[in-house]
Structures are given as structure tokens and as C-alpha cells.
């Protein structure tokens, strides 16, 4: 009878196999990033193409905007018949970073949120030269957020002015004229009056999502011409401007004048529909809510400029916005520039996006162009908005947009700051922190965990 024993693999063979695997791995690892000073940077400046033929791969965010851009390609091809556009709907947040790091299948152009542009600057073309003919007409805030060390890394696309949305019907019933609100003090007074009229109300929206709360905080700061960090990336939270903003939010909360809810979550919608929440200081894209979500109060809502922090101050700040970036590893980035130039600066292009189209018969009204000739108050691209009682939102938004002060690029660690500033603002609204504590604690934590580790 045979007895099977496991065969003994000779030690030398085992060592050889492991050695081979390690040698191959180490060899391959050498293909990774080189270790050096870590201070490499290049300032490749994109040059407009001399030949206009080839194929470009364009990444757009999935959803309605993708469909709208898709509809413009035919018009682009009328002008550039030899450029084939491979337009792809992509989860950009999930794919872009890996694609740029690995330099594999890199698209020629990408739609990207403004706040993310500076973080990718090392991978992108400097667009200063090609944008030069247009910069004088582009909103300063959009140029600023795309500029790093004097180089412009994004084609500025839309402007997202902050507006004060209000329920006109509910406020009229309480005898309040929202159009007379000029400062945040006026807003507090109006909220108190509404609260007196309707005791169960929390008239002003207080954002409960840490991320969106921080975004809204930056909208308020933008109005005051400041932001979380200066152009050198130095923190500037510890300032009178942030004290003023946090003090306002704290007053709303302590005075029982706010509805604390996540943006358009079930609680938020219920409070908006019931008339408990009647003031919503938010970016223009809130207009999506009355148009599609607030079926009970559709038509009751209006929009006006944000109140100013001081009488005569700026009546709007930026909240959100996107631009187009052109990766250096894209094969035909110069041709992609022509596509974005058409979209952003050619009348036929921006009219096709913002004007009536297959997706939005009355035009796209969740933002406005950042290019001056496209954004003229008396030349609306999108129509009046029925859900806002037939209001000319275009005029309101363009006039507000003109008041947005200049800005600085968003630091690459902005998203990480939500763990500190965003959370601390929520703690303040919970009543467990004071505005001063929010500033002190956030400053220390952001400096230690984010700024110092850049």
C-alpha cells in the first residue's frame, strides 16, 4: 500500500521562487514615483491648435448637464467639421484622480468643480495664453479660483451667485416685504416678525450637512471678499469676517429663527412646503427645488439678491461653480480647448447651453455664464421661471453675479476641512460650541492636519 506524503519542496527552490517574486516586484516598484525633493512643477502653457482635425474625448458629469452639452456637439461640428467629439458621461469624482496619476486613457477635457481645480494643477495645461482674449470679460471670481501662481488652469464656465430665495405668499400673509431686506440685520428682523406671526416657524434655513454647511459658509465669506485661506494657502479663519458670519448663524439658532435640516432632505422639504421655512440663502441652483420638488408651494417662491453684511456691501457671494480643465496627458487637449471655447465664449455655443434646448425647453436656469458678453441683464438666455411666479431670474442672478467680489483659488485641502470647520459649525448650531471656539478649534486642527501636511 502506498502512502502519499506531501512532497517536500527543496529549500533552494522555495528560496528561488520567493526571490524571483521579490525581484520582479522590486523591479516593478521602481516604476513607481521617483523619490526626490517633491518640488517638481511645470508650467506648460497650452497653445491654440493650427490644425483643426482629430478626435477629442470629453468627460462631463452624468445627468442633465451631460445631455445639454451633448446637444451642442452638432453645432460645434458645424464650425469644426473635422473634430470628432467622444463625449462621455463619467463619475468624475471617482475616476479623475486615478486617471491622472496613472496617465492612462486620459481625456482631453474634463468638467470639474471649481474647488477641485487647484488640487490638480500639476496635471493640467496652463490656459493663460488661449484665454488671454477673453479674460477681461470673465467674472473676476471665476478667474481667481482657477489661478494658481499666475497660471490659469480651468476654462471658467458657470457663475453660481448666492441668492435669497423666499416664500412670497407666506411672507405677504405675515405682512413682510422681502424685497425691502437689504442687510442680514434686516433679515433677522423679518424672521422675528414672521416667527411672531407664526410661532411654529423656523424662517431661515440652517444647513445640517457638514459639507454643504461649509460651502454655504464660504458663500457668506465670499460676499465679504474673504475665504478659508488666502492666495498663499495661509488660513484666515481667525478674522472679523468669520466672526460676523458665525455670530449671525449663532443668533439665528439661539433665537429659534432657523430650520435645521439637510439641503432638500425630507425635513427640509416638509418645512418649505408647510411655510415654516420661508428664507433660503443659497446658490442659484436652489431654484431646482421650486421647479421640481416643492409641488405644494410651487409658484410661491421668489429670489432676490442676498442681504449685505453692511449697508452698501456686496449683495452676493459665490457658492459652487465649475470649469473645464485640459489634462497635459490628453492626446488632443488643444482641440478640446476649441470645444470649450465654443461652449463658453461663442454666442452660438453658450446660447445652445443656456437657451431653450431639448432638455430644458425654457433654458438652463440653475446657473449663469461667467463670461460677461453672455451674461447681460437685458439679454436673457433662459426664460422666466413659472415656479418662481414667472420671475425674470436671469436678471436677478446676473445683477447679483456682478456684485461677487474677487476671490482666491480654493486650497486642495478644502474638502478635508469639512471634518473640522464643517463639523464645528454643526456643533455650534447644536449649542455645544461658541463662534470663537469654532474659529479657534478649526484653525488649530486644519493647520495641524491639513496645511502642515501639504
Amino acid at each position, binding site marked *: 500500500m502506498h502512502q502519499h506524503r506531501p512532497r517536500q519542496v527543496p529549500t533552494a527552490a522555495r528560496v528561488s521562487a520567493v526571490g524571483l*517574486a*521579490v525581484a520582479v516586484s522590486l523591479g516593478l516598484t521602481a516604476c513607481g514615483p*521617483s523619490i526626490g525633493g517633491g518640488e*517638481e512643477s511645470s508650467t506648460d502653457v497650452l497653445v491654440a491648435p493650427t490644425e483643426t482635425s482629430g478626435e477629442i474625448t470629453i468627460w462631463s458629469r452624468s445627468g442633465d448637464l451631460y445631455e445639454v452639452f451633448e446637444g451642442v456637439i452638432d453645432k460645434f461640428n458645424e464650425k469644426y467639421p473635422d473634430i470628432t467629439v467622444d463625449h462621455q458621461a463619467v463619475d468624475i469624482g471617482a475616476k479623475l*484622480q486615478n486617471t491622472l496619476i496613472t496617465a492612462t486613457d486620459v481625456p482631453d477635457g474634463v468638467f470639474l468643480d471649481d474647488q477641485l481645480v487647484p488640487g490638480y494643477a500639476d496635471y493640467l495645461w496652463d490656459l493663460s495664453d488661449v484665454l488671454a482674449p477673453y479674460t477681461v470679460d470673465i467674472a473676476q471670481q471665476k478667474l481667481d479660483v482657477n489661478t494658481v501662481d499666475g497660471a490659469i488652469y480651468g476654462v471658467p464656465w458657470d457663475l453660481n451667485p448666492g441668492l435669497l430665495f423666499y416664500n412670497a405668499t407666506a411672507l405677504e400673509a405675515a405682512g413682510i416685504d422681502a424685497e425691502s431686506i437689504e442687510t442680514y440685520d434686516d433679515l433677522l428682523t423679518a424672521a422675528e416678525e414672521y416667527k411672531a406671526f407664526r410661532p411654529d416657524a423656523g424662517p431661515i434655513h440652517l444647513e445640517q450637512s457638514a459639507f454643504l454647511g461649509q460651502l454655504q459658509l464660504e458663500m457668506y465669506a465670499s460676499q465679504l471678499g474673504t475665504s478659508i485661506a488666502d492666495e498663499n494657502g495661509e488660513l484666515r479663519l481667525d478674522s472679523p469676517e468669520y466672526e460676523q458670519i458665525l455670530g449671525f448663524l449663532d443668533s439665528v439658532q439661539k433665537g429659534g429663527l432657523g430650520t435645521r435640516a439637510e439641503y432638500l432632505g425630507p425635513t427640509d422639504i*416638509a418645512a418649505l412646503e408647510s411655510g415654516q421655512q420661508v428664507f433660503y440663502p443659497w446658490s442659484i441652483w436652489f431654484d431646482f427645488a421650486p421647479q421640481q420638488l416643492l409641488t405644494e408651494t410651487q409658484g410661491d417662491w421668489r429670489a432676490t439678491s442676498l442681504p449685505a453684511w453692511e449697508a452698501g456691501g456686496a449683495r452676493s457671494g459665490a457658492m459652487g461653480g465649475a470649469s473645464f480643465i485640459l489634462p497635459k496627458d490628453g492626446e488632443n487637449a488643444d482641440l478640446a480647448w476649441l470645444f470649450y471655447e465654443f461652449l463658453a465664449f461663442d454666442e452660438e455655443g453658450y446660447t445652445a447651453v443656456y437657451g431653450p434646448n431639448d432638455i430644458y425647453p425654457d433654458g438652463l436656469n440653475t446657473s449663469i455664464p461667467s463670461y460677461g458678453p453672455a451674461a447681460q441683464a437685458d439679454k436673457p438666455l433662459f426664460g422666466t421661471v413659472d415656479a418662481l411666479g414667472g420671475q425674470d431670474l436671469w436678471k436677478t442672478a446676473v445683477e447679483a453675479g456682478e456684485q461677487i467680489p474677487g476671490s482666491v483659488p480654493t486650497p486642495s485641502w478644502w474638502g478635508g476641512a469639512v471634518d473640522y470647520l464643517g463639523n464645528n459649525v*454643526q456643533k455650534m448650531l447644536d449649542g455645544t460650541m461658541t463662534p470663537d471656539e469654532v474659529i479657534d478649534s478649526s484653525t488649530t486642527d486644519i493647520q495641524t492636519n491639513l496645511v502642515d501636511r501639504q
Partner: protein
Amino acid sequence: MTASPQLAPRAAWRPSGRGPRRLPTRRALAPYVFIAPFIAIFALFSVYPLVFALRLSFTDWRGAGSASWVGWDNYTYLLTSPAFWASLGNSGILWLLILPAQLVIGVVAAVLLNNAKLRLRGFYRTAFIVPFVTPLVAIAQVWVVVFDQNFGPVNGLLNLVGIPDVGWLVTSEWSKVTLALLFLWKTTGFAIIIVLSGLQAIDDTVYEAASLDGASRARQLWSITVPLLRRTLLFLVVLQTLAVFQMFAEPVVVTNGGPYGSTTTAGVYLYNHISRADLGTGAANSFLLVIAVMVLSLVFVRVLRPKD
């Protein structure tokens, strides 16, 4: 009788007297040739990423340009960071909320489903596995609505019996419970299937003998089923421990790691470094997480391994 394996004399398998040296050399090389594809694939897709990540964990690299060698800095930063320990703590609490409950539910449900007299057995088995195959994002949206503090049906039901609203998703006290309930709802069907497969491997004659000896059903469950399921339960515990510590999608889609980081699991915390292009810290974090999970798994293996 035990026979020693006999090695055939080399000459016996020589086809001829010619080329006596070449054939043994080729034979000796043959195994290496056969395993070479595996070694190459293993090196490329397993060892290489591991070595790459290990090297990365000692650098500061944002994905572009060259990396800066920072030595142990990423590790010391993490090991002295309250947020890192908080993420491990969050995962630990979730583990405590999930694993014991899942084991009990899994064993009880599997024993019931294993009963041949149970009517609609196939229906129940399918029903238990449906949550496991349902897309998480869809369920997460349902969870957000159902557990809404002010308008969710869960609080509505609690209000009916006089219990005030609970901040399921918006308070750090309850957010982990809500997340644990989602994880339990989604993955307990899988646990039941695993336990069921273990139950079906137990010989029926063991139960017959116990019945003849007068053992009650409960006694059989405790003294026969559970001990004989130890290997299965060990497998389940290790697998689910890995799943809980790597839990990512659930907190991201339901609470986005909040409120106040209370549902930032070890997996989410690790992802946060990667998504912010802090690749060196992310790599160091992944190695620390591997060590933590490995230690936990070894403890479970030691505690739960069968006595025999």
C-alpha cells in the same frame, strides 16, 4: 503495513542511453516553468502593489511629480492622531453592535430554515437573501427616509407608543445604531446561508442519537449544533470582522461619515486620505489597518477554533 515510497532508479525512466543529462535538467526545470505564469501574475498583481504601497507609506506623494521620503512620519502622524483612533473606535463599536446580533440571528434562523418540516422553506431562504443582492445605494435612500428624525415612519411608530423622536441619522449617539441596522439587514441573509451550509454538513445520526438519549431540542442546539458549527462560525466571524472594519459604502451613502465623524469607519478614514491625494498617509493607514485586522482575526481563530 506501511510501505516506503520507492524511488525508481534514474536509469529506469531513461528512454535510451542517449542524452542522460539533458532530460533530468529539463525535468527539474519543468515545475518552475509550470508555475512561472502564476509567479509572474502573483508578483504583478499581489506582491508588486503590496511592495509599492509599503514604499509609498514612507513618502509624501500627491500623485504628481516625485515623492518625498518622510520616513516614519505618516505612521507617527496616524498613531498620534485622535481621528485615526476614533475611526478604529467607530469600527469597533459597529462590530460590537453587529457581530453578536448577527451570529445569534444567523444561527437561529438557519436552524429554523434547516427544519425539513418547515413550510415555504424555499420562499424564506429566498427572502433572507434578497437584501444581500439588493443594490446598497437604493436601500440607503430608503434608510434616509425611513429614519428621518421628523418625518420618518420609524419615529412615527415610536411616537405611537409614547417614545419621542430619535435622531437616528443626525446624532452621534444613534447614527452607529442606524448604520448597524442597515448592515444587519443587508448582510444577515448571507450569514444565514453560511450557517445553513455548516448545518447541512452535520450528520443527522448525531441528532438521532441525542434524541434517543432524551436530549431536548434546546439541548441539542447548544450541545451539538453550536459546537459542530465552530469552524463555520469562525469563518463567519473573521469574514464579517473584515467587512465591518472595511465598511465604506454604507456610511458614505447614508451619513457621509457624520454626524461629527461618528460613522467615519476605518475604511472611510482611509479613503479620505486617498481621495484627498494624500497617498502616503493613505498607504500607511492601510498597513496599520491590515495589522489591526490581522491581530483581531488571530484572536478569533484562537478563541473559536475547535478543541479537537
